[in-house]
């Protein structure tokens, strides 16, 4: 028999369900994601560290869990909340269920809950702390929740970043090892094939604040040699690797807490072409002297429309962020290149003189639409010294 469990939010709302995955309690900031596929990528996305994730799509686990769809070496969410978990997945790649996957890594989940009700609550009241529990009353859980530290007070980046630098080959990370491969990638477009053939392979260093493997796969596929380094790596150590360009990765938490990354970024700017993705984009804003602020319930999904202000074109993007760059805080010379069509928030920056681009969304997709892979091409062109 499944064990009864509840999700309690800090405003006192309680949602009934049953426990799945690991036994025990989970706590964290409760956020929702509206993507309809890609739960394994979500679970392993380091940007979800410290968060309990609620997919709004009700049927989770239908195609199981496989060896290919890892975005990092482990599950990163602190808890998982679903309407229905699939006990008998069906897919040629599947090696197990979501429940088994969660249990194997000690992550508690709750199933059978009214996830739409939770989403509506978060939309109205904003994201908040919550806990999954199966051995307390709602009152006890709420009392415990009030004693726990808040999401915003943590530096999750140190927790998720790699301890050692590693390079990325066509078969995945060379060190540290992990059961991942890079088989499942979008097919190469004609222009990408062309790019791959030209000249010596550019060397890209990715500052791992919570890297997703698909960023490395995408760069590798464009013919780059790729090295991932810990978030706390100094600019000097990065220069010592003789990179042709640097990617500032996505990652979890409040960018205001990451002074050390800001400092590194500031030292890189002007010396090397830089591409910032998500948290990396926010770090660039900080490095330029800008500021970020917390969104009410963030952007998490695979359907957010973003307008490229240079062309007027609209792109459907994968998103996962709770903070945004304040456009008014940016200095002259740094311009907003992309805007979110839903709420007008900043989605991308461009330096008027320096080879620096940044996006708030996820060009590496995974999960989500592949429409923005061209940004990696643009960056590689920039690294090669071509005018973009």
């Amino acid at each position: 028999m499944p064990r009864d469990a509840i999700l309690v939010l800090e405003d006192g709302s309680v949602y009934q369900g049953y426990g799945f995955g690991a036994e025990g309690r989970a706590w964290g900031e409760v956020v929702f994601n509206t993507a309809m596929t890609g739960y394994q990528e979500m679970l392993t996305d380091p940007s979800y560290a410290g968060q309990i994730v609620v997919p709004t799509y009700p049927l989770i686990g239908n195609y199981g869990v496989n060896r290919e769809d890892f975005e990092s070496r482990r599950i990163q969410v602190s808890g998982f909340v679903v309407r229905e978990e699939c006990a008998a997945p069906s897919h040629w790649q599947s090696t197990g269920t979501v429940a088994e996957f969660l249990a194997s890594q000690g992550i508690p989940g709750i199933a059978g809950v009214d996830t739409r009700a939770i989403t509506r609550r978060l939309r109205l009241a904003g994201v908040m702390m919550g806990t999954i529990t199966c051995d307390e009353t709602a009152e006890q859980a709420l009392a415990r929740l009030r004693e726990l530290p808040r999401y915003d007070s943590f530096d999750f980046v140190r927790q998720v970043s790699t301890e050692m630098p590693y390079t990325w080959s066509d078969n995945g990370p060379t060190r540290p090892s992990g059961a991942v491969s890079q088989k499942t990638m979008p097919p190469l477009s004609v222009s990408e094939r062309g790019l791959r053939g030209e000249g010596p392979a550019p060397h890209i260093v990715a500052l791992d604040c919570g890297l997703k493997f698909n960023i490395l796969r995408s760069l590798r596929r464009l013919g780059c040699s790729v090295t991932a380094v810990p978030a706390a790596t100094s600019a000097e150590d990065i220069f010592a690797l003789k990179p042709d360009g640097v990617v500032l990765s996505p990652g979890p938490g409040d960018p205001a807490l990451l002074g050390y990354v800001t400092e590194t970024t500031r030292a890189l700017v002007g010396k090397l072409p830089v591409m910032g993705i998500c948290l990396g984009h926010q770090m660039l804003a900080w490095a330029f002297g800008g500021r970020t602020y917390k969104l009410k319930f963030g952007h998490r999904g695979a359907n957010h429309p973003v307008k490229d202000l240079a062309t007027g074109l609209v792109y459907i993007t994968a998103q996962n962020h709770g903070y945004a760059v304040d456009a008014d805080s940016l200095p002259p010379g740094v311009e907003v290149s992309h805007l979110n069509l839903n709420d007008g928030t900043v989605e991308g920056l461009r330096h008027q003189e320096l080879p620096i681009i940044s996006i708030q969304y996820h060009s590496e997709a995974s999960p989500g639409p592949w429409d923005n892979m061209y940004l990696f091409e643009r960056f590689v062109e920039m690294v090669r010294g071509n005018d973009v």
Partner: protein
Amino acid sequence: MCAANKPSKVLVIGSGPIIIGQAAEFDYAGTQACKSLREEGITTVLVNSNPATIMTDEGIADVVYIEPLTVEVISRIIERERPEGLLPTLGGQTGLNLAVALAEAGVLDKYNVRLLGTPLDTIRKAEDRELFKQLLLDIGEPVPDSATVTTQEEAREAARRIGLPLVVRPAYTLGGTGGGLATTWEEFEEVVAGGLAASPIHQVLVETSLVGWKEVEYEVMRDGAGNCITVCNMENIDPMGVHTGDSIVVAPSQTLSDKEYQMLRSASLKIIRALGIEGGCNIQFGLAPHPVVANGDLPGRPVTRDGLSSPYYVIEVNPRVSRSSALASKATGYPIARVAAKIAAGKTLAEIPNAVTRKTLAAFEPALDYCVVKIPRWPFDKFPYGDRQIGTQMKATGEVMAIDRSFEAALQKAVRSLEIGKRSLLWEDAAWTGKPWEDLPLHPHDQRLWAVVAAVRRGASIEALAGRTGIDPWFLMKFGSIVGMERRLLGETLTPALLRQAKRLGFSDEQVGTLADRLPEQVRQLRRSWGVLPVYKMVDTCAAEFDAATPYFYSTYEQENEAAALDGPSALVIGSGPIRIGQGIEFDYCNVHSAWALQKAGMKSIMVNSNPETVSTDFDTSDRLYFEPLDEESVRDILDNEANHGVGNGDCPPPSIVQFGGQTAINLAVPIAQAGLPIMGSSADVIDQASDRRRFDDFVARLGVPQPPGAAVTNVEQALQVAERLGYPVLVRPSYVLGGRAMEIVHDPDELRRFVALAAEAAPGKPILVDKYLEGKEVEVDAVCDGEEVLIPGIMEHIERAGVHSGDSVAVYPGLGLTEAEVDTLVTHTKQLGCGLGIRGLMNVQFIIMREQEKSTIYVLEVNPRSSRTVPFISKATGIPLVRLSIEVMAGKRLRDLGYAVGLAHRQKLVAVKVPVFSMSKLRGVDTYLGPEMKSTGEVMGIDYALDAALAKALRAADLSLPPKGPVLLSIADRDKPEALPIIKRLARTGYPLLATEGTAAALSAAGLSVRMVTKKLSEGRPNVIDIIMDGTVGAVVNTVTGGRVPLQDGFEIRRAAAERRIPCYSCLDTFRAAVQSLLREARDYSVRPLREYLAGAPAHYHQAG
């Protein structure tokens, strides 16, 4: 896009009559498009031949033409209206074909009309198999390899290149027969030889077999600036091999990983860009199946992913809004047609607001937080002798959709929505009893879903079933979850937790009752006392990420209810469910108008319906929409949810309107009334009195209105006695059915025995009516009755004599062939019947006029206390808004206060002709002859100032005109020959070439006509009748039949061949006579005018009609 690109006037082409494969979804699309263009300040001109559409109503487009969809007619409209743009992409394939024809005829260039939506070149490419294949290969998208060959050697060569397994499809064979699958070289030789022999032009197509692969569709949009989005994807539960229109479909896809989802999404965007479409597009893919399917024993075992060069193939592209677009719109809330029209008007996706959230824009992709299941509705309840197998030719007339938070519940609600009796997933065919699962009919056919569930129930393993059916294991696992709950309900004590679990899996009270040994009403009471009640959640396009304004809801068993009862007075409009023969789009038309009329009358309209194709289920038609099955449980749950606590003491549920949803809604009157819930308009008792034969007979006898003699019987002996007393022929039918199901004209006791048995099977336990068959003139009226007065907008006279179902008859307004005295009697009878019954609202009465010398007797055949399928036609022909008036009356107004005279309305100076349209080419094995059982799927309207012109246009619009130069094939029953001769003579006098079968040819020769004889003996020499039909020699067929259903074999093949070659086949001499009259007198000067002008009266140079 700059404003200069915005056309100031646009011509929108509708899709014409409802046929299989092109149904109500295009009324929905066209209506949205016209509204959307008008919002942009664009003058819209609409042309459609189908009167039963909302799009052809005044107020939707600026100018409405109800005219045949031909190049000639549309050229005249263009010449007159001078539109800047032509929008053909919302009118189905009909619209696209017309656009190409107009361009090729030079009309678009001549009048400088810009084609909007899809470029001409793309339409042409999409229609040409080879061009299209090349286009996809050029952009690197995989297509299944194929070749068209005419010899065995060519076939072998192609097969060596493509590789086995292959599908072989012969060209132009009856029912597409003669082809097949080849998995070995021996099989291949055999199948190709058979196919070449079967094809009259000795041609077959050999193609890579993807049978058993997953079939996945994407709905994509692109604007003029090049922005692309996907609205939704859908996965067919039936794998490749079954037409997507005949597949059970789920949205979004359930078994695709994110990588697969995105791979196909990216391919879709690439394709719509390459095609240059500005608007919507539907793309279908085959995706490699699960290994247990690939390694299973499905006939023509599919190739594994390793066997082919690509994990997916592009199967089909529809460069326009399609049936799937309508489904995707309803499944997501994203209004595809509306957005497509705005794009055609020059807007970009980022400039179009999301009408659902009213906060975000059309440039986004809907996120679903529920599961949607669509099930097709097939017409085999009406055509039990039809071929029930399904395959690549679509056969469904309609579909249902259901939404819930679990797949199981969405599936079970969709099954409830089908309205096949009260059939739930528990149903099993009697023939399956005791059979092991391996022997169940698991191949694709209309009842496969039940057979597969039955196999699960018998313990079939998921692997074995997947291997056998090609259905992905995930879906079979879900069927297993349903069967598991059945077992629990059978074996365990019913507890609140178990009941709640069952409801979350979509079990109806009726199913729970059957399994847990309780009455459905007891289950309902248990639910109430245990608090196991449904909540309603919103379809908002965004998974609750944004606050949405749409009032579009579905039921589910969850924690939070989002639909608080509406404030103020409201009424529930009960819809008509899936489109089926006998209950078509006409009823949806009435539902939409009743929702609007309620709003005009100051009430809020609440709509409930299960049909995704319709305007009634559009999010802005009513104040609130519940997408739910139309059965007692869901209607009562909705009424409970809408019970307004603010009014008076206690709950006050809104009244229900049951008059507009066909038999579906009428059948709910009694359960609603028994539950103590109010009904607006005619009461349940009034409805019962009109429908119950005994009560109705007594009532009519009291009034003194004549009725054909007859009686209700319950067994064969009684039937034989009654028939003996009345004298043959007699009309036999079950009571309480719509569309003349199982109704027949019977000529002798043997036939009677057979049909009484059949009728008893169609409606078990219900009485069977045996009436004297009167072969007179059939006349029909629709009327509004306020209890004291009636308003009859007009009288409709049928061209075919009584005995042909009214839905299949050609009807003419304003009843030109009737005498003044006859008209007076019709009006008097209608008033007596309506007021006597106490009808409040709409009624439809069918009469037969028998003329003997000077005297005519008018018999009443039936009174339907509800709207009929002629309501849209008569409303359009007379300009009288019947539905609105009846809502006013139902709300308590008097007809006299509504500004319309009572009695028969003033006759319009026009003639309107309604001609039925059939879909017989799609339904293998179904006999096409006209009889008392309805067979048509749609209708067209021809309107003009004189009968000949109106009739000619209507026949033309229905593709029922005689070909101008012939020849016609005649095969006429002996008893019809004397009557047929004068008609044929008229035709022959013009030199029209005649072909005839043996007996008919002899009779015509004897009458001095020149005729070529063709044998109907299929085994004696060629060419026989079938050959000359299939090879295109014959332009039309006249074939009358002698009697009942079984002895029809010799004419059957002729009629089927005509159906499949899509040439007119007249099985009733009255229709043939009208077609001859219209051919011989077809005036070149037929009018092409907006409906409004016809209604304004005839121009001076026309004589008054009649």
